[in-house]
């Protein structure tokens, strides 16, 4: 009976999944499989990023993941900061000067057109500022660079623009360098994912989830770039990004780790990021200056830099690295002195400070390479000094609730690991946030310290430089809100076929026009 059964059952059974999968593959139109393989032609440069840009909107280009693609490639600012010299240089504005205390006048470049063919003029420049700073769009750059202040802009004639600030602002030109210029046809009610600019490249295609292609634009006012196309992909694992360089699938890879073992294909560059612990002086035991000093003495910064980062980072004495206006070259990092740390803690204890109270070491997972290791080292070293430290590794959103105001007050003492990158080149962008007693990322301050900061903010030239240098010295002497660890060094992977020298802003603004084929 059974053996005479006719239907070849197993075959029928197997047909189902097979048919189903064929149907699935067919229905979905092979949307994944049909993207063209290996476009490794010599006039295309292939870049691999850590994440897909959420948008390419020009007024959000101060976000690293957006700016790295759009800034100076698709769109351009009026004024541009040279990341190496720190000087401001003309871009779409050829010259600028302060005409009164609060008014700046800019002369604009002639003969520039947008990628949609419309001409660039003062009207477009004014439109850009209005849209980014004064509108209801909620642009990221608005809060980041301009705060609450609205700017009054006026197109005097086709090539002259005036900008008026409510308060005197000596670094307005620097702030303007964050604004990428867009034509007046850009929407004022919604953000635009694929902007039109005046840059050397225009957005050719964005395969969401897979790749962005830029192609060089013939009407560009400056020199034609060496590469006709730039392709961006993204992989979240740094080892995979490194592997793509090694295997020849990409030409430039951002954000590698020293352990990706990429050999001489890796290029180091100072990325302007500084790592530090921010200490909450509102809670015991960190409310005692000696304990905060002890934290500084207890950290073996040399050891960390040498063993975790292969000596590539630099031990830090302040929140900004060299090259930022206000960096105090005379400041020395706190020496590693465990005995001194222990005795400071003991002194504080003798004076009735509860040194056994728990300190939460709050760290954001995956913020930068080897952060988990670093956090465990810090915990161990602080424990050695006699402090009770509990490590808390948190994801980004949770970490933010500790990082910015309003701070929760039922947490006890917090030592927060912060990675600060000052991409503007002026210490005001650091100090206002991190050191004012009401700063968004500052636990505390003192009235005289606040006064010093206010004075520095309004100063200009050498006086400004000096004022900020004093501020960094004062923080280390009297305030000690920060225990600085290191100035970081970034690594980008670069194929032999590409010539490119990264600089301190490469992570935020990767200029494809500066890349050339090596042969």
């Amino acid at each position, binding site marked *: 009976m059974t053996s005479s059964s006719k239907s070849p059952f197993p075959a029928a*059974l197997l047909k189902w999944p097979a048919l189903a*999968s064929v149907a699935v593959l067919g229905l979905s139109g092979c*949307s*994944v499989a049909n993207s063209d393989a290996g476009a490794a032609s010599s006039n295309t440069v292939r870049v691999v990023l850590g994440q897909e840009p959420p948008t390419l909107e020009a007024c959000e280009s*101060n976000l690293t993941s957006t700016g790295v693609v759009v800034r100076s490639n698709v769109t351009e600012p009026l004024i541009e900061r040279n990341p190496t010299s720190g000087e401001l240089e003309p871009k779409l504005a050829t010259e600028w000067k302060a005409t009164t205390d609060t008014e700046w006048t800019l002369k604009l470049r002639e003969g520039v057109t947008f990628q949609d063919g419309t001409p660039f003029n003062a009207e477009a420049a004014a439109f850009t500022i209005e849209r980014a700073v004064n509108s209801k769009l909620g642009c990221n750059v608005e809060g980041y660079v301009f705060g609450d202040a609205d700017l009054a802009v006026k197109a005097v004639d086709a090539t002259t623009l005036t900008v008026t600030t409510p308060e005197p602002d000596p670094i307005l030109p620097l702030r303007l360098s964050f604004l990428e210029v867009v034509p007046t046809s850009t929407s004022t009610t919604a953000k635009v994912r694929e902007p039109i600019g005046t840059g050397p490249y225009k957005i050719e295609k964005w395969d969401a989830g897979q790749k962005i292609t830029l192609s060089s634009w013939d009407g560009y006012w400056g020199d034609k770039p060496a590469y006709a196309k730039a392709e961006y992909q993204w992989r979240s694992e740094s080892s995979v990004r490194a592997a793509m360089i090694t295997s020849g*699938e990409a030409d430039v890879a951002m954000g590698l780790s020293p352990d990706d073992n990429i050999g001489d294909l890796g290029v180091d560059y100072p990325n302007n990021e500084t790592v530090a612990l921010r200490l909450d002086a509102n809670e015991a035991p960190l409310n005692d200056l000696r304990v905060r000093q002890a934290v500084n003495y207890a950290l073996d910064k040399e050891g960390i830099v040498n063993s975790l980062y292969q000596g590539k980072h630099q031990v830090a004495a302040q929140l900004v690295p060299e090259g930022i206006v206000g960096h105090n070259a005379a400041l020395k990092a706190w020496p590693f002195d465990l005995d001194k740390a222990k005795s400071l803690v003991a002194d504080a204890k003798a004076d009735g400070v509860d040194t056994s109270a728990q300190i939460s070491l709050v760290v954001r997972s995956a913020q930068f390479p080897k952060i988990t290791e670093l956090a465990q080292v810090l915990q161990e070293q602080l424990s050695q000094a006699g402090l009770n430290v509990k490590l808390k590794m948190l994801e980004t959103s949770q970490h933010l609730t500790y990082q910015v105001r309003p701070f929760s007050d039922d947490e006890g003492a917090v030592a927060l690991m912060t990675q600060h990158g000052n991409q503007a080149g002026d210490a005001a962008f650091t100090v206002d946030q991190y050191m004012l007693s009401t700063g*968004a990322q500052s636990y505390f301050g003192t009235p005289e310290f606040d006064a010093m900061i206010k004075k520095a903010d309004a100063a200009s030239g050498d006086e400004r430089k000096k004022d900020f240098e004093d501020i960094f010295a004062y923080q280390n002497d009297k305030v000690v809100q920060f225990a600085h660890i290191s100035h970081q060094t970034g690594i980008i992977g670069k194929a032999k076929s590409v010539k490119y020298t990264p600089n301190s802003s490469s992570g935020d603004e990767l200029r494809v026009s500066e890349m050339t084929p090596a042969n």
Partner: protein
Amino acid sequence: MLIYLRKRIVSSALPLVVVIVGVFALARMTGNPASLYLPLNATQQMRDDFTARNGLDQPLLVQMADYFGGVLRLDFGQSLRTGQDAAAMALRAFPATLQLAATTMVLAVLLALVVGCWAALKPNGIADRISSFVSMAAASIPDFWLAIVGIWVFAITLGWLPTSGVSGAGAWVLPIATLLLRPFGVLVQIVRGSMVSALSEPYIKLARSRGAGELRVVTHHALRNAAAPALTVAGDLTVGLVNGAVVVETIFGWPGIGKLMIDSILQRDFAVLQAAVLLTAVAIFALNILIDMGYALLDARVRPVTVKA
């Protein structure tokens, strides 16, 4: 069958609503996304503006009513992160995961049937020992680790395959191989188990006594009965794949729904998360119905055989 199908679809509607309500409520327990989307030095005013603009200042029930109102008009809201239509983002990502999961499961089932049958012919024999050892080992290797080792060996050292990405057939090999191992390992165990039992059933002896060849006995008789549990488990594993390809998608840069989901969870992109969960939930419910129907069909065909034997 059609009546059954209709009943199942109707009875699945309520659970779908429960899933969405659950995701909606849980997502909002993970905190206000304002600080993720605003600059670090944003003022309280900017935070309040952001919260109001995205309707997050409303009571939860009002938000939920709004959302369901939108869903009925097929409006799933906008992504906070990209400003795009949430449903469009989910629909765009889904096929990539589906293709990956379907291909993986077909291969896993085929391979497991072959290896499982081979092992079951001589229970506790050498083939059995080796195959169960290998399949268990395969099922217990962490997938992200395997993926990175795979890239290292096959893309860098040997240069046979691309490291990642979606271009060309070669790019499919490593993701599928990584995803395949666990379902394969589990299915081998299951096929082997049911085959061992099936081969000692009386009707198999009957078939043998009538002179049926060994291969025929295995493929035509025993496998029929062994297929049922394998089908169910394969179904469960597929659900797991659809939901959990996130690790493989993350490493290989595969633009699928798993990656979309984890990104929108970590970025508190509620609308996208809800759209993605709704879409996968519909797919999983559909898959469950298909499995049950397949099972009913299978049962109907298998039953006479066992009863008469």
